[in-house]
């Protein structure tokens, strides 16, 4: 059994990630004492990280053998998810931050800062739960931790991802698309095929009241923004009130990183319009003596 590969993923992702713990919003609300929001415990697998080999064997796979039976399974899961995460980072979806859990690559912590629409100002937490045999196990689930009144989010917090991705096609679909779909669902409310009938009905029948409910969700989310982490996973996204003593230097570092470009080194004397070695005209610097 290989030594906990998922941990490595989490670390490497955290390093690559441009995720910043400092957000621009600084809600004035005072943190309430710890209030567990239930669903986090539910989604953590019993043995984090390492999928049960017994289950893996049973699963049918397009290429039976290595992937499903051997010790390499967890590595393949991890390395199938790495490009997904890199793509998500590359997309830089506005207002959304994601980071994989430290204990398993199969759960990513997320938080969305809604910037317009009925939920504007809200800071909502969600988890992306990825099937163990990704990319073959269907669509990743999105489960909200924040209490939300939304036609596409069940009262338990489950996002109706099936509305957007009825069938997961690994050649077309990627996790960043899921995240972007979630973001858009807060901008333009879609009451079709709802998982929260009441919300859908209210949105259609009593728009004012729906807006008020949405506002309630927003203020509740702000109130709970400093809640303590319900899990001991070190990658759980938590917030602290901005304190220039602790955070200012970090913020400066983040901003300065963008400007400093890596001094690229390497040997090349190939001219840009040529594919011949040593085609760069002999410059005055290197060889100008006759």
């Amino acid at each position, binding site marked *: 059994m*290989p*030594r906990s*590969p998922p941990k*490595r993923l989490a670390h*490497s992702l955290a390093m690559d990630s441009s995720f910043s713990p400092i957000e621009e919003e600084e809600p004035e609300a005072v943190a309430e004492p710890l209030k567990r929001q239930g669903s986090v415990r539910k989604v953590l697998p019993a043995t984090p990280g390492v999928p049960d080999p017994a289950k893996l064997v049973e699963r049918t796979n397009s*290429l039976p*053998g*290595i*992937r499903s039976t*051997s*010790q*390499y399974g967890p*590595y*393949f899961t991890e*390395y*199938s998810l*790495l*490009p997904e995460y*890199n793509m998500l980072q590359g997309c830089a979806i506005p207002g959304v931050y994601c980071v994989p859990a430290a204990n398993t690559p199969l759960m990513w912590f997320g938080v969305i800062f809604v910037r317009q629409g009925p939920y504007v100002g809200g800071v909502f937490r969600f988890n992306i739960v990825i099937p163990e045999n990704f*990319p073959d196990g269907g669509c990743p689930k999105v489960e909200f931790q924040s209490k939300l009144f939304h036609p596409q989010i069940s009262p338990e917090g489950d996002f109706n991802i099936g509305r957007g991705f009825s069938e997961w096609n*690994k050649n077309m679909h990627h996790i960043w698309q899921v995240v972007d779909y979630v973001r858009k669902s807060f901008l333009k409310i879609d009451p079709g095929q709802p998982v929260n009938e009441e919300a859908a009905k209210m949105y259609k029948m009593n728009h004012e009241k729906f807006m008020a409910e949405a506002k309630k969700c927003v203020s509740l989310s702000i109130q709970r923004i400093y809640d303590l982490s319900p899990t001991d996973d070190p990658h759980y996204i938590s917030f602290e009130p901005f304190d220039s003593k602790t955070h200012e230097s970090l913020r400066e570092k983040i901003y300065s990183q963008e400007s400093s470009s*890596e001094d*690229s*080194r*390497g*040997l*090349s*004397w*190939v*001219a*840009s319009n040529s*594919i*011949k*070695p*040593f085609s760069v005209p002999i410059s*005055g*610097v*290197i*060889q*100008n*003596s006759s």
Partner: protein
Amino acid sequence: MNWLRNSPIRVSLRGRGTTSSPPKECDPAACFDSFKHHWQQAQNIINKIQGGTEGATQDDILSVVNNLDQMQTLLVLELKRGGREERACLDFLLSQSILDQLLTSSSLTGLYSNILRLEQLKVYEMLLTHAPQQQLLLTQEPFLRPLLRLLTSCINECFPADIEKRLILLLNQLCVCLTHNPEYLDLFFTESTGPGRFVIFSLLVPYVHREGGVGHQARDAMLLCLGLSKKNEALASYIADKSNVCPVLATGLSGLYSRLPRKLLIESEEWHCFTPDDVIELPELTHFLASLEFCNAVVQVAHPLVQAQMLEFVHHGFLVPVVGPALLQDSEAFSIASSDPTVQRNMVDELVTSTAYLELFFRSISEPGLLKVFLRFIVVDHYDGERVIDKLISRLSGKTQLCMVTISLFNTLIGLHCEDVMLELVFKYLTCCTHVMLSQRKRIKDMDVYCRSAERLLALSVAVPRRRKTNSSSSSAGSLSSQSSQSLRHVSLHGDFGAYLVTARASIAATWLACGAWTHAYDGESPPPRTALVLPTDSNRNLAQKATEESLASVSSGYHSLQPDSEVREDSPLVTNRSSAPSFHSTPDIGPFLDLLLRQLENMMTNSVYLNLQLTGLISRLAAFSQPLLLSLLLNHSLVFQPSVRSLFQVLGSLKQRLDAYLSRHDNVEELLLEARLFLVCREESLANAKRHPHEPAASTYAPSTNGGSRRGTSIADSSFKGEAKRLSISSALSVLKRATQGAFSPVREQPAIEYSANGFRLAKRAENSELKNVVLCAVLFDEWLKELAALALEHGSE
């Protein structure tokens, strides 16, 4: 006996008069008086000498020296005491032009002039060492004028060792002083030293190849001068135009190269490159490398004018006339084809040596300018229509030592991450994309997102045949205990797969960074395929073919006598003719370099394990490049290539089949696999242990302090012992030669490789089993290499 302590005899015996050193808290006024008194005495003698007719006697000189020694002691005291207003002695020394007088008198002392010269050098050195603001001394006429006269008088002189030592020390001090105060540099370009002449540098040049401390100090001082030349045009043009340092250095390299052993006594089948220990054991090589590193440093610090001249001389004065012939002595231009086996053997041995030297040189230099000259020499220069690189590529086939060192050289060359080299070896043949089926060309850039290639690679792992039912008694007696076989079952040479991934990640990242300045992306679009060179592919094919034939004919001594010589002779001019006439053959290919590597890989089952280690290491290094054209050829399992193109997956697949088939025909393979694994693991561990206490390699004295170190080591030590990262890669870790381990693990083919004295297990039928053992070792290596490749594929996919 107290009187003896202050006697002049005793002082003269000790050479340096420090016996009567005054107490530290002595009165400045008394010191000054004493100083004046000593000078008076010395001056009297000097005057006597100058006025007299008989010349100086030994007593005279001794007396002067003693007085000067006393004066120096007093001066040191005064200067150490500090306090600017109390510099009576120094002021006296300068105002009385004492240094001038000493210089004048020393020229009259005939036989003893060197003694006084030494004394003067000591005075200047002492003043520069102890004066609080040494640079101010340089502006003092009574200091500078006699100093310059003294130095000028030293030009073209031959001195005894003690004067040389003092002279170089003084020059070094002056250089340090000028480096800190470059504005005083012009003071040294005066009429008195000759027009436009920089006397310090001229004096240093003869010492540049000197061994030991003097040479070291001279080279240091010279580097300081060269550094100064970067900002001083007068100095730069003096060094480039008037001094002969560049030719001296370049011809010095040639001279030192010719002193290197032409043949090495290679004791091990495994040897493929020089280790730091090897270098230490060859003083000539150590000396050569010191000189090469000095040239590297010169190119690094000098003014472009000097730099250009230096490179020019290295090229025309060292590489072309000396290294070229050494590398090409097997080609027609340099040798008469001989049918004498000993002559052939000798020639091959010398080629092995010169190839290994070249490989070491590439590890020892770091300056881009110098690297460029070396690389151009290999890639561009022609020797009678033949390029060095073509010759080197042709030596990649065969199973000989020459092949091993050549692979090692290419490993180092590719490790430079130089676009020009990679273009010449690989991309030149791939940019036209003709090796890929037309319909597949847009897939070249595809990333392997869901780890399919890694899966395929790992699936190629050798199938271990089930052990056949044998008598239970024999199996328990003759095999390892079940416990140890249990523990070995999961032994990987590289720890777990995660370690392979870490190594792959680091290697890909390093490669990617090192290719940051490349001109083209080599992704099938840049450069656009249609601008690609139309290559006379026929000649490449011939090169590969010829190489195989040649290696059979000349290199492996067993075969060559069977081969009629005339055939080889006939063949060569034919090939030259064909390649010179451009033939637009349409058969796509991947170039002779990759082609020969893959051919060589096909022979993995019969290659020695050491050759396989080298070979797999080189291919792994190539697989760390992210350029899609190369990456797709090596690690994309689904890309469809032209039928004439061999892909890595094809070769691996056929190897797996043959390995499986071979192993299934034998008993006890499972045990043998475990033993082979243990052998390799033990070997790796002993290599790692040996490396933990390596000879402290002579650190590169002229290693650039600012850059270069991170990308590529500047000293041999760096490139051979990179510590953890390097140790993790099986190919490299296993392939490093340490003599210490040779006794314990002898080469596989001659003797039973694996002996468990505790369990009494031995391979009984040696001859019969040696082939099996080799195949088993190959299978273990093959499996581990698949993991390495799979890790590379995974890491590439996750970028």
